[in-house]
């Protein structure tokens, strides 16, 4: 009897708390993120990434220290806050991962097909891009996002990215903007940033790459877009493709003026 009574009162409490749930749950998630901040396992990726950057590797046995991320060969500090950008040596706009592939091919002598086969880490396989990405972006912490738009190809990438963001397609007739074009929307308990609005766009873009607790992996922006395409039931977004760079350019530019603050930690 006593036990039934207890269950009944628990149920009652749940019913009363019901309507107020969403807001307090969001607060609880914020608290959870704050607690995790201190022991962010992204540190482990950063350490491995720094090591990879300085290690002599590949057929040519050289390190990546001469790789130009846009601020001159070997300059890593703050470089990510100004990516994607146009690189004259490759005559195209590149984001971080694309630039890393370029450097690994041109400097270290790797074959492009070999090093882009499995770009994302998973059980039993680790990704060099996720490690390098963690370290390079950590060196841009605190820098202000300032994506260059002076070259015509940069403007072209931005316009293409914008078009893709609003383009509806696939079996669900979905666009990026379906989920990320309105303010105050959420899926279950996940708040959806409105990426057409500056504040939200800044908060979203400046907290990638991030360690995903649910996956136990550090994920870079190429992965984020790849997974968005999967969720929209779009065809696979090819790693370092023109489409992925254009969309990144559009989203990065929308975050201009925001303080870069990654690698972050997400649920």
């Amino acid at each position, binding site marked *: 009897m006593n036990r039934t009574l207890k269950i009944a009162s628990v149920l009652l409490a749940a019913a009363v708390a019901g309507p107020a749930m969403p807001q307090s749950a969001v607060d609880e998630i914020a608290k959870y993120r704050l607690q995790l901040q*201190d*022991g962010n*396992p992204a*540190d*482990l990726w950063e*350490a*491995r990434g720094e090591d990879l950057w300085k290690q002599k590797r590949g057929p040519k046995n050289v390190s990546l220290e001469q790789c130009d991320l846009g601020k001159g060969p070997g300059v890593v500090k703050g470089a990510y806050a100004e990516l994607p950008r146009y690189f004259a040596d490759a005559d195209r706009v590149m984001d971080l991962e694309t630039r890393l592939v370029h450097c690994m091919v041109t400097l270290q002598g790797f074959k492009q097909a070999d090093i882009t086969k499995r770009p994302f880490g998973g*059980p039993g396989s680790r990704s060099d891009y996720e490690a390098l990405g963690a370290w390079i972006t950590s060196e841009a912490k605190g820098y202000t996002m300032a994506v260059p738009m002076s070259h015509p190809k940069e403007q072209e990438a931005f316009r293409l990215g914008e078009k893709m963001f609003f383009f509806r397609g696939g079996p669900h007739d979905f666009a990026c903007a379906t989920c990320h074009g309105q303010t105050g929307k959420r899926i279950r308990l996940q708040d959806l940033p409105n990426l057409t609005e500056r504040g939200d766009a800044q908060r979203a873009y400046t907290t990638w790459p991030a360690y995903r*607790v649910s996956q*136990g992996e550090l994920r870079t922006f190429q992965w984020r877009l790849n997974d968005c395409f999967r969720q929209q039931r779009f065809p696979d977004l090819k790693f370092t493709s023109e489409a992925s760079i254009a969309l990144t350019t559009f989203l990065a530019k929308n975050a201009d003026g925001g303080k870069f603050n990654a690698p972050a930690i997400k649920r």
Partner: protein
Amino acid sequence: MADPMRIRAVAKDGVVNVKVLMSHEMETGQRKDNSGNVVPAHFIQSVTASWQGKTVLSAQWGPAVSKNPFLEFNFKGGQKGDKVQVTWTDNKGDKRTDEATIN
């Protein structure tokens, strides 16, 4: 060979605060892979921390601890400049020891 741990140790008012981040898969043995085979358990079983040859923390862990675990603890007596050593051993006999200087 496992990746190095990240250890931070800070002394304040005679108490040392130690934060350790370990790189480990921490497989529970309950999960199945894509082809339906059980992924064998692989997790850290024991963790010890020592300072000047004395054990200041000894823990027994199981498969319920998360991947890439984070451990934080305090102990009394350490001074700035002393070394703290942390060792873990997993169920396959793999071992890793790392050292940090107290700040």
